[in-house]
């Protein structure tokens, strides 16, 4: 019998305090249709979160493009990181060109600082996760790719099994390595960090952008179990509950004022694939 991965996911994403939702430069991609929540099944599932740098030209859109491009590329039979980045840059170049054309057509040519921003390009951190079904039901393998400081945490029961790519809250800085929209001389091409592991039904993965990830690691370092605290507001149907929780952490000075995104993925006991139900 073909085994499948069965995962329930939910995403929450809110801007830094003082910004509107449109100014949120975090991005995610979990499913082409299901948006922020749902259950996915398949031999191979993918998730991505990305975080546009504060500085640069429309970095939130670049982050969004990267998350979507990673998702679709990694689900192909052969995944090449180089090809993924190069295609994303190609799409971005087209996007940029048409944006400039529209502005010119509308009689609103770019200001000098917008031209400077376009020349510099946009940068973003990216974290991508792939879950693969194994030989046996309810088990499988996972692989993650990261450039920058978005983090993955794998939790089994009451234990933190994996922390990737950062393991300590001191590793966060204001200048992480990021994927830039331009392959220009003087820009060092970042090599993605990669990790492989195994999962079993009941495991929970958290994909967090940097402010939340730094909080998560600080809590771990203090001997707490932040996944237990984060799970409830992250899984709540009501987005306001997550907003209230983030606000309270920010008010206590425990969370840096930044865009906050969490994708929580719970591995489920898979249901029998269609067509196999009668044979059971």
């Amino acid at each position, binding site marked *: 019998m073909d085994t499948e991965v069965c995962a329930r996911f939910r995403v929450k994403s809110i801007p830094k305090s003082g910004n509107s939702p449109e100014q949120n430069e975090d991005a995610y991609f979990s499913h082409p249709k299901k948006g922020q929540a749902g259950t996915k099944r398949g031999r191979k599932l993918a998730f991505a979160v990305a975080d546009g740098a*504060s500085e640069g030209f429309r970095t939130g859109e670049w982050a969004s493009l990267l998350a979507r491009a990673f998702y679709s590329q990694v689900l192909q039979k052969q995944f090449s990181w180089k090809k993924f980045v190069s295609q994303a840059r190609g799409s971005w170049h087209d996007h940029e060109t048409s944006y400039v054309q529209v502005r010119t057509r509308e009689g609103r040519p770019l*200001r000098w600082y917008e*031209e400077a921003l376009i020349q510099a390009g946009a940068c973003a951190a990216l974290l991508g996760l792939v879950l693969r079904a194994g030989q046996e039901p309810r088990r499988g393998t996972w692989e993650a790719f990261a450039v920058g400081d978005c983090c993955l945490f794998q939790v089994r029961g009451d234990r933190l099994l994996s922390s990737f790519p950062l393991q300590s809250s001191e590793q966060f*800085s204001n200048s992480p390595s990021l994927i830039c929209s331009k392959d220009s001389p003087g820009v060092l091409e970042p090599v993605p960090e990669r990790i492989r592991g195994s999962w079993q039904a009941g495991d929970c993965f958290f994909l967090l952008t940097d402010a939340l990830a730094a909080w998560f690691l600080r809590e771990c370092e203090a001997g707490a179990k932040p996944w237990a605290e984060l799970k409830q507001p992250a899984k709540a149907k009501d987005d306001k509950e997550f907003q209230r929780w983030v606000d309270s952490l920010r008010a206590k000075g425990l969370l840096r004022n930044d865009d906050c995104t969490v994708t929580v993925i719970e591995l489920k006991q898979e249901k029998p694939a269609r067509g196999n139900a009668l044979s059971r």
Partner: protein
Amino acid sequence: MPYTAEISRDKPSCFLFLVDQSGSMDDPFGVGDGITRKKDGAVDALNRLLANLVIRCSKAEGVRYYFDVGVIGYGAVVGPAFAGPLAGRDLVPISEVADGPARVEDRLKKVPDGAGGLVEQQIKFPVWLDPVANGPTPMCQALRLAYSTCQRWVDAHPLSYPPTVINITDGEATDGDPTQPAMELMSLSTQDGNVLLFNCHLSSERAPAIEFPDAEPSVPDKYAALLYRISSVLPAPIRSAAQAEGYRVSDGTRGYVFNADMVSLIKFLDIGTRASNLR
């Protein structure tokens, strides 16, 4: 901890530039072709500082109000020195600075071609200030005007990251010892820390550039030691950012540069994430 206030639209900070426009700025600059005069070096440094500050505050929807910005010129006269639409104004929101250069020039910039060489790239170069070299060097008077400008600002923004004052000069004050007015300026504070005074020293001496030293610079310019002494020690957050950018710093590192611009200082400001692989 001081100097950790978030710079945001609710709590902007302030940049005040003091630009030496005295007659001695007409002398050749000790860097480059030997033809460039110090007044050209000064306005180039200022225009580039302003352009970088604007770019760091630019977002898709426009330029965010993270700073109030002022330019005080000192030479034959002491006062606001913006040229063009901002002429006569003392502190201006950065968004207005972005949209208010006197003109935008097309210039050529040398950039790496990826094969070890350089290629010329056309860039827009906004100009807010033109070179002036005329009269004495009333640096004390400029520092006192900076004091009153900053005092008004800190009174109105008690919780903000404190003002950063950058003095671009060849160091020859003609109205007395600038130490006292500089100390008074640095004694002003918000709840987040004291006003920071940094000095960008442009000299006629052909000596190598020095950036952010932690001891009196040994250069053949008699004003270097004085300007070093009236430069603030870099606060810890700026020091860490400077270190991340590859500068060697210590607890005593001061905001002083000799025959160099201070554009790197803009990178040290904590107004969000930037890529470490961009240089």
